[in-house]
């Protein structure tokens, strides 16, 4: 009998699931076209923020000219990170647990939001980290006692409560170049200064100033020429059920007073900024792009989608009444689908819901009820390059191989990543981004000590370059039904022997545990896998004298991946057994099959 490893974790039935699946396991690599047993790549430690504070966000800006810059948010600091992971302080924030971003191509910038709404929306253009203009004033325009406007600098004399970096709107000035929403360069209790975009003649008129509100949003998306913000707070006014859409092709203009909803006769014509509300008025806890719409989740509510084509007819309508996402980042676009973690930990996908309705079939996590049980929050990331979707939860990563869903629909597509490293997969941020200084993409995450990790790291190095990776798979119970006809004896009376067929990639020990049925015994044996074939000076044909020296046959090499086998014979007998394979190693071992 040949045993392969084509399926993932299936916790539904320890006796009757497909033999290629495992009933327990972690850290194995799934591949829809491979049936081998091998460990996931170890994660690399790429760098550590200067202040070694918890990482709350990683944001990467790739401009139209392909130049990239990457921000790391650690504690109260914002760092720009070089390709060599040198950290440069570019700004301050209020400590948060979830800084996220969206790319706005027209202005080649990131729009940055805060899942905690501890920081107002910001922007990053590759050199400056600052508030994102939005044009929403606090409603109190005050005529200034005095001002001086020369060149690009406008000094306003008046009592105020502004501070550096805040936004303020100037009006009634002449020429018009002085009017607009500007950043406060400096401020005191009786005056402030702003810098306008371009030099102007001396300002005149009876100018007024109106501080902009602090605009907070949990999430942002770019869709149909607008930036969409979700779960809004303006100053201290909470509107967690609100969606704000920027003006068409202008991220500097938002409007929290104009409502786009045909049913409420908003009267908008097309390009205006506007707001909408979740139909069930519950807080929004996730949003994702899905084909030609945006899917919105509300807390303990539903999934909604946005219909319409412009401000005159956009509206939020019911999409899936069954269940909304749990937590704050559990919903993710997966290329051709949207997946989300529901309350209780189950993970659904929208395509199944659309096809089958609210049935068990849409619960793609039905294979792993134990691993997902009780999960209330997660960070979902789609690794487009490797076609894997990951839910980072405290202490582990639940990984779905997307190709398995289509190519091996009968097998579980799940694996669980765990680590021996102190970071423990406890993270506030995980994101898919381009390798710094590279061209390929990977999943990056941070820890509570300011460390940045690359999930698919260097083979052979171990997690963070130091820790072994415990890779483990346990087959379902194997008994007489799995062996040849009338081979009940195979396990009851015969001694189990077999061979591991593997590739010689490095020295590693495979631990095999055989948990015998009708016995209290668990046999544990160790099978040593050999490393590379070391033949640097060896002669294949009988010494150097036969084939004229060492140059002709096997002149010297250490071939990798040579197929080899190792025998094993665990002690014990019983009416069937559970078989578990594991290895706690840094080696990227590869077992083709077990031959029993």
């Amino acid at each position, binding site marked *: 009998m040949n045993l392969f490893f084509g399926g993932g974790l299936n916790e539904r039935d320890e006796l009757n699931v497909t033999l290629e699946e495992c009933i327990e396991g972690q850290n194995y690599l799934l591949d829809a076209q491979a049936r081998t047993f091998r460990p996931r790549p170890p994660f690399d430690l790429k760098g550590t923020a200067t202040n070694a504070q918890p990482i709350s966000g990683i944001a990467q800006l790739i401009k139209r000219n392909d130049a990239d810059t990457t921000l790391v948010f650690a504690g109260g600091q914002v760092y720009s990170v070089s390709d060599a992971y040198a950290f440069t302080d570019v700004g301050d924030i209020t400590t948060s647990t979830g800084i996220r971003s969206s790319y706005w191509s027209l202005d080649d910038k990131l729009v940055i939001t805060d899942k905690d709404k501890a920081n107002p929306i910001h922007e990053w253009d590759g050199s400056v980290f600052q508030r994102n203009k939005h044009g929403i004033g606090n409603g109190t325009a005050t005529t200034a006692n005095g001002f001086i406007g020369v060149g690009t600098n406008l000094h306003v004399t008046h009592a105020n409560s502004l501070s550096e970096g805040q936004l303020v709107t100037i009006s009634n000035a002449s020429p018009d170049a002085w009017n607009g929403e500007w950043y406060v360069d400096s401020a005191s209790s009786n005056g402030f200064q702003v810098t306008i975009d371009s030099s102007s003649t001396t300002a005149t008129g009876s100018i007024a100033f109106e501080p902009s509100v602090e605009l907070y949003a949990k999430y942002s998306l770019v869709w149909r020429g607008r930036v969409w913000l979700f779960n809004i707070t303006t100053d201290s006014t909470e509107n967690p059920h609100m969606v704000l859409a920027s003006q068409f092709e202008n991220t500097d203009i938002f409007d929290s007073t104009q409502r786009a909803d045909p049913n409420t006769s908003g009267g908008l014509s097309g390009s205006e900024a506007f707001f909408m509300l979740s139909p069930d008025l519950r807080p929004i806890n996730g949003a994702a792009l899905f084909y030609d719409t945006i899917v919105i989740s509300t807390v303990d509510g539903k999934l909604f989608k946005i219909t319409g084509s412009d401000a005159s007819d956009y509206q939020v309508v019911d999409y899936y009444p069954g269940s909304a996402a749990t937590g704050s980042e559990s919903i993710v676009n997966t290329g051709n689908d949207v997946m989300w973690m529901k309350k209780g930990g189950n993970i659904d996908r929208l395509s199944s819901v659309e096809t089958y309705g609210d049935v068990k079939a849409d619960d793609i996590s039905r294979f792993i009820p134990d691993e997902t049980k009780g999960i209330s929050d997660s960070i979902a990331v789609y690794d487009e390059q490797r076609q894997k979707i990951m839910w980072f939860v405290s202490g582990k990563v639940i990984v779905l191989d997307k190709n398995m869903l289509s190519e091996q629909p009968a097998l579980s597509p799940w694996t669980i990543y765990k680590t021996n490293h102190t970071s423990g997969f406890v993270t506030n941020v995980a994101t898919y981004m381009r390798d710094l200084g590279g061209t390929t993409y990977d999943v990056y995450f941070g820890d509570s000590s300011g460390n940045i990790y690359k999930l698919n790291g260097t083979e052979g190095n171990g997690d963070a370059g130091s820790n072994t990776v415990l890779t483990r798979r346990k087959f379902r119970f194997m008994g007489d039904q799995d062996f040849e006809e009338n081979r009940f004896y195979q396990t009851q009376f*015969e*001694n189990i022997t077999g061979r591991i067929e593997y590739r010689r990639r490095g020295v590693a020990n495979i631990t095999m545990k055989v948990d015998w049925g009708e016995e209290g015994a668990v046999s544990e044996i160790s099978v040593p896998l050999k490393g590379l074939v070391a033949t640097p000076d060896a002669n294949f044909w009988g010494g150097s004298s036969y084939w004229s020296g060492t140059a002709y046959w096997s002149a010297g090499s250490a071939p990798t991946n040579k197929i080899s086998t190792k025998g*094993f014979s665990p002690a014990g007998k019983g009416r069937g057994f559970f078989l578990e394979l594991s290895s706690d190693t840094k080696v990227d071992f590869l077992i083709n099959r077990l031959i029993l």
Partner: protein
Amino acid sequence: MIFLDAVNRILRSEGVITGDDDNVSTFDDTQHENMINLAKIAVQDELNDLVSDEAFPYEHDNGYITLSQGTRAYSLESDFIRMRDEHWFLEQVESATSTGTATGKRVYPWNGGEENLRRVHSTYRTDQGDPTYCYFIGGTTVQIAFWHVPNSDAVGDVYRYEYEKTVAVSTESDTIPLINTEAANAFVSSASIRFRYLRLNPKDRASVFPEGIEKDTSHQNAKARVFEFTRRERPKTQYGRRYY
């Protein structure tokens, strides 16, 4: 050849160690745990089989008993299995060494053993005098006792006995009790067939060994080779009566 070598030779000849497998370096090696256990049993069973036929030169040894006044029973060597000769006796020697000269005095076993002696001499446990007979007594160790119980004149007398010792192997460094390599290899060949027998399930065992291991011709042939190598004489090259 040591026990470990024998086990490795069995595992390799029976296809357990093959491919990339290395020889077992210790009996604690878990990779082939079950097969190691079976190979050990095969060797031990095969040894027992041959020991019972007294085929091994390693079985022969001798021991010494030094008498003390008033001490009736004396322990024999810990590896003692049985006295070597059918009509055995204790030979008095001048010293407990291989060069100790025999004095000419011998002590023979009491006919009928302790049970008979008990009936004949009720004070056999305490009567002291010059020992003239001996007998085995039961217990957790093998002991031999004298009648009469040694008196002061017998103190220090040394008796030698020839015995068959155990040649059982248990640890990996124990020597397979055959003198030359040919004999040891032939023994392992025999043990390999027993190993093959042991590892089969009952159904396959009945098929491969229809008459059991005892009547298996391959096994008998292997055993015969062991005997040929251990007889220390040139074996017969033909069988049957020769007529001149």
